[in-house]
């Protein structure tokens, strides 16, 4: 089965005060139709930048190399009209902070209808009907009143539902969700995730789900790709990540999760400081923090290798003992 969204050796540089900074080194990722893929990593690892590259919402002056294809068509190669059509009909995006990402001076109804009415096929009445149905589907009660309200009159959780409804209103094939729950409180997070997951399965939507939460990623996605400092270091089926993880960074992340029902005297962390993509030298990006680092790692960047069910970019994948990877945090 060929991929709906195919990212191939994506590299992104942003203009900086002197020259440019690389924010994405090497991202290759496929999302098949109907499949949910998680992109997991810490802040600054380049996961949001990857979705922005897919949407062509990179800041002005950004330089992109590699290829991004949707249904076989190159997204960076689209002209303005094709890009507009693609954005309006094939893809929906849910942003992290709904309060910043919804125009504060326009009504909720205007925001929802704007996207639906773009292609001009639906009348105002039909558009309103579709939008109302979706609002009920994302669990919003009293829809008519909500549609005539302004964003500041709604809670964060409600606004994020509005954003999800807006993203689904154009009946896209792919949903890009950029940390859709990070700005919400914990109970609201669960509801919003359940809504996204339910609607996605119901409609057979493909999804690229950006998060820093491994457990959440495993719960709603079929595959998980782990990003570190601008590159994907490991990619596994969601169910096989915990037993099979072979990149030292993935293992570190897994070991650092607090577990319910077990009291930890001190939360475990990965030693060292997370580095940004532009700080990466010639060698492996994780070399500065890796407990099993060798000379080769500092000299040469490992290429991703296919392993059973996934890919991993490490010279010595699978050699390390998980316990050896993590410190107990006391060293800090």
């Amino acid at each position, binding site marked *: 089965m060929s991929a709906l969204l195919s990212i191939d050796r994506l590299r992104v540089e942003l203009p900086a005060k002197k020259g440019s900074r690389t924010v994405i080194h090497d991202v290759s990722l496929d999302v098949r139709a109907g499949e949910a893929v998680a992109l997991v990593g810490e802040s600054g690892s380049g996961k949001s930048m990857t979705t922005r590259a897919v949407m062509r919402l990179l800041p002005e002056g950004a330089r992109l190399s590699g290829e991004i294809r949707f249904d076989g068509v190159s997204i960076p190669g689209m002209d303005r009209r094709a890009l507009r059509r*693609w*954005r309006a009909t094939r893809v929906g*995006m849910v942003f992290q902070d709904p309060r*910043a*990402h919804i*125009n*504060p001076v326009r*009504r909720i109804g205007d925001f929802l209808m704007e996207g639906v009415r773009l292609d001009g096929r639906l009348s105002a009445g039909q558009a309103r009907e579709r939008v109302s149905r979706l609002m009920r589907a994302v669990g919003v009660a009293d829809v008519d009143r909500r549609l005539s309200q*302004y964003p500041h009159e709604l809670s964060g959780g409600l606004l994020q539902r509005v954003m999800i409804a807006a993203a689904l209103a*154009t009946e896209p094939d792919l949903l890009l969700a950029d940390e859709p729950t990070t700005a919400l409180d914990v109970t609201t997070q669960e509801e919003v995730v359940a809504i996204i997951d339910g609607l996605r399965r119901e409609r057979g939507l493909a999804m690229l789900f950006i998060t820093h939460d491994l457990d959440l990623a495993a719960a709603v996605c079929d595959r998980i790709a782990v990003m570190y400092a601008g590159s994907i270091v490991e990619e596994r089926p969601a169910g096989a990540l915990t037993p099979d993880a072979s990149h030292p960074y993935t293992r570190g992340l897994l070991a650092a999760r607090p577990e319910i029902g077990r009291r930890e005297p001190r939360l475990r962390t990965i030693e060292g400081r997370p580095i940004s993509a532009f700080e990466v030298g010639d060698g492996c990006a994780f070399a500065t923090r890796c407990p099993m680092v060798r000379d080769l790692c500092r000299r040469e960047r490992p290429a991703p290798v296919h392993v059973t069910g996934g890919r991993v970019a490490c010279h010595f994948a699978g050699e390390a003992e998980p316990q050896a990877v993590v410190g107990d945090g006391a060293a800090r």
Partner: protein
Amino acid sequence: MASVVIYGAMFVVPGDPASLLVGGSKPNPEALAAIRRQFHLDEPFWQSYLRWLGGAVRGDFGTSLVYRSPVADLIAARALTTLLLVAYAAIVIIVAGVGLGLLAGWKERRAGAVITVATTVMMGAPTFVMAVVFVAVFATGLGWFPVFGAGSGLADRLWHLTLPAFALAFSWIAYVAQMTRASVREELRSEHVDTARGRGVPERSILRRHVLRNASGPILTVSGLTVAGLFAGTAVAEQAFGINGVGALLVQSAAKQDLAIVQAISLVLVVAFVMVNMLVDVANALLDPRATRRTAG
């Protein structure tokens, strides 16, 4: 408060209006006293101030020392010309300023730098300089517009007021343009504009529905301040183009120390300034749903 300052300032300036009015090097003390009584110059400050303010509220600004006719009539006769000039200049400023600013903010690469440089230069050109330049180029040089006067009939008046209005508007256009550009740039960078782009909304609709609409608050505020400031600016423009308006009356009266007129016009200017700003605040509250809702409920 402002009225106290306006009224008080007239008593602080050197020179005695009464003796100026009588003329001659050796004024007759009896005539002086009579004039002082007539214009209440002999009363204590607070008493005369309250008398003046009480009259002003009822539209009675007293009698001009120089023209020997009611100040209210003198101002009323000239008000239409000045209002027309201010309205003309305001339209020029808002259309040109917002237009240029929008263009500079939107087409940052192609037009931004040029407009920024041009408006920076424009900001440094005061009305009296532009008046001289405009007269030299468009009136005496090309002969497109009259050199002075206010004209009669609407079309003729507008024709006469074109050069004064543009001279008055010139530096303010630049000011409004730069503010517009700044707020348009800011809105274009905002996250909800990214959302709209990501949904495939055409750039023109984004500009209208998400940028201009959201930037209208600061633009309106600056435009309002500018228009309010125009009332004072008319003094220079009218004087330079020989237009018999309220502004020119203010300049001439100040030169002749015609207290009653200067006080009355100053008060009218302050009231006009406050009124325009109040209108802007009301309009801003109507434009921003967050502000209206707060006051309503």
